[in-house]
């Protein structure tokens, strides 16, 4: 099966530090990975996409990497702020489909003052 694994333990960091979240996948390398943010009681919100031929993608304070050797994507938030506190979800495309995704369980980030 094509799984996505994220650390289920919450990540607690201090404001201003860099938060790093991990997404590991199994079996075939997906054509791309997507990262979403989810706040309590809300639907997920798309943040970034990285394709398998891209090593790194940036958007403002966010950076995503994709390592096909390690079968891993890292999601970084630099200069983190309390407003970054949320659950972050990683998703991969299911092989053989155009738009069906499978999601990880998410990692909750808590940024404290």
């Amino acid at each position, binding site marked *: 099966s094509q799984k996505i694994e994220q650390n*289920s333990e919450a990540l607690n960091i201090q404001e201003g530090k860099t938060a790093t979240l991990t997404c590991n996948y199994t079996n075939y390398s997906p*054509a*791309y990975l*997507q990262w979403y943010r989810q706040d309590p*009681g*809300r*639907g*997920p*919100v*798309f943040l970034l*996409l990285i*394709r398998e031929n891209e090593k790194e993608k940036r958007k403002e304070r966010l950076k995503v990497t994709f390592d096909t050797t390690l079968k891993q994507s890292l999601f970084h938030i630099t200069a983190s702020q309390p407003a970054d506190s949320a659950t972050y*979800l990683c*998703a991969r*495309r299911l092989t053989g489909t*155009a*738009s*069906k*995704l*499978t*999601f*990880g*369980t*998410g990692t909750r980030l808590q940024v404290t003052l």
Partner: protein
Amino acid sequence: DAGITQSPRHKVTETGTPVTLRCHQTENHRYMYWYRQDPGHGLRLIHYSYGVKDTDKGEVSDGYSVSRSKTEDFLLTLESATSSQTSVYFCAISEPREGEAQYFGPGTRLTVL
């Protein structure tokens, strides 16, 4: 929430009753999805639609049916609700392009007693 509404937002029902959840979009996106989200499982795809009257099953489709008679509406029906279907249900939309982001609705919290 990207022009996506879900109704009802909350529902409590009894085991054995039929339940229909509605997703409505104003974005004219071709693809629509229904997910359920449960602790420890993350988002799981129930059914999706790739056009009017075109639907297919996801990974947890047993006990659910869908219909799409108009581009803007995607209905999810629990034919005979069970307690295991207590969950938060999210609708999502996307365009049929490789890697396209999915945009989620606000969710429906369903409790089956």
